[in-house]
């Protein structure tokens, strides 16, 4: 659990000259579940894309230290469920694509690979739906299929970008149970991006709060109510509003103290 898996050292990134991330340093450890929160435009998805190698940092380093340095990441994009309603593919077809990078171009799925696909499909509770068309599944079932696709290559890190978007409350509860169960069974680290601070506090080992830079990186139990409130405010209001509110509150409190004298 304490062995380092992924390190970001002083990472900065800009899109067309507009800085999205500033000097971000953090470390993920094997087997932990980490929540990543932050307001819209905080750079969360950009940070994930830097971690998985879809983007390269302008400055700083992203270093994968797990399994002899090989990048072994399963990824579920926030847009994964936006698929063509007519796409003619079964759950098994889609889960199999999670192995294609591993077996390489021109490689063929062997019998053991097919067993691995089967076991990933069963692990997410879709054992009976393997031959079902992916587009016929409910939102929650489709999300499970994509988790199986991210899991099938047995990654040491599973990155899930806003996986509960469009899932109802009971589905969300099921999702967190599934992630906890898979984390225990496979031992991979999980990084979970969500706007739902309450869910992250409840279900993760550590919360990283990002707004272009890392503002907090703490265990949920170590978060003061002030920091928690600040996180909730940041989600609803731009940074300036929170700062103005804090300044206003300080002035009011100072005024009240002076009046009391």
């Amino acid at each position, binding site marked *: 659990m304490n062995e380092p898996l992924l390190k970001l050292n002083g990472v900065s990134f800009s899109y067309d000259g507009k800085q999205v991330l500033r000097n971000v340093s953090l470390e993920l450890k094997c087997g932990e579940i980490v929540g990543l929160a932050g307001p819209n435009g905080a750079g969360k998805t950009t940070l994930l894309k830097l971690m998985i190698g879809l983007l390269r940092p302008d400055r700083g380093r992203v270093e994968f230290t797990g399994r002899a340095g090989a990048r072994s990441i399963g990824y579920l994009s926030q847009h994964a469920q936006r698929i063509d309603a007519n796409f003619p*593919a079964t759950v098994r077809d889609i889960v199999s694509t*999670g192995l294609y990078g591993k077996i390489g171009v021109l490689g063929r799925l062997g019998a053991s690979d097919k067993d691995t696909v089967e076991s990933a499909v069963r692990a997410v509770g879709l054992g009976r739906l393997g031959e079902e068309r992916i587009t016929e599944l409910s939102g929650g079932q489709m999300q499970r299929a994509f988790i199986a696709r991210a899991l099938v290559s047995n990654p040491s890190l599973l990155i899930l970008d806003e996986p509960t978007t469009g899932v109802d409350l009971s589905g969300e509860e099921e999702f967190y149970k599934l992630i906890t169960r898979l984390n225990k069974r496979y031992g991979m680290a999980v990084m979970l991006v969500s706007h739902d601070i309450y869910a992250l506090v409840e279900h993760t080992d550590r919360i990283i709060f990002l707004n272009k830079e890392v503002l907090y990186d703490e265990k949920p139990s170590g978060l003061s109510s002030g920091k928690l409130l600040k996180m909730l405010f940041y989600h609803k209001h731009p940074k300036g509003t929170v700062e103005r509110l804090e300044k206003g509150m300080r002035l009011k409190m100072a005024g009240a103290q002076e009046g009391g004298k």
Partner: protein
Amino acid sequence: MIDILAYGFGQRALLAGVLVALTCSTLGVFLVLKRQSLISDGLGHVSLAGIAAGVLFGFYPIYGAIAAVFAGVFGINALRKLRIPGDAAIAILFSAGLALGVVLISASKYASADLLSYLFGAILGIGYTDVYLALGLGFAVMATIYVLFKELFAVTFDPEFARVSGLPVERLELVFTLLTGITVVISIKLVGILLVTSLIVIPAVSAMLLRLDFKNTLLAANAIAVLSVVIGLMASFYYDLASGGTIVLVSVGIFAAVLANSRIWQR
């Protein structure tokens, strides 16, 4: 059927037609799912520049079409890298190819009759060179799709995930666009530049309405395309109609029948 096979031109037309139908419909399923159907239309129009150059300078026009389409593929790729949106890149190449074709045609004094066969297709007048070219290139396209099937499937379904999992997505996209270009070229004699997209898109969309899995969707698209070509060729032979237009009308008829049937099933 027996009568058309009694003639050499009929045998050549059927052989090339069936192969082109298989190639177009296989590629079409991927193109429709990638929402890139119009790339075939764009490349078809780009090919006009090469065909016109062939007619004007006296070399085999299909070779000119191959060169123009390859230039088009690399042009679209270069424009995309310069962050020009994909559909705008196709529109720019489409316009440039068509404009160059029109200018070259205007410079040629006796090109019009020959060019009509490339615009609207004339498979019953197909020669041995066209048949061998269609066979060679068609087999090359089908073999490449067979060998790269799983990679093309993954990139079609979710290119971002394919990239994360380690597949060389940019190179696969380039190979796929080149295959589209080759398919467009071998379809020109069958249905013509103006109708080339129809044989790529219509059988694929019809097959997708059947709600099968991926491999069976491909087989259904192949069957619909082959049926359209065979029925279309026979109708054009017996009733003396334009082959390209007849083939496309048959495929539209099959699409309408499948669509009506799928609506009835949904009720």
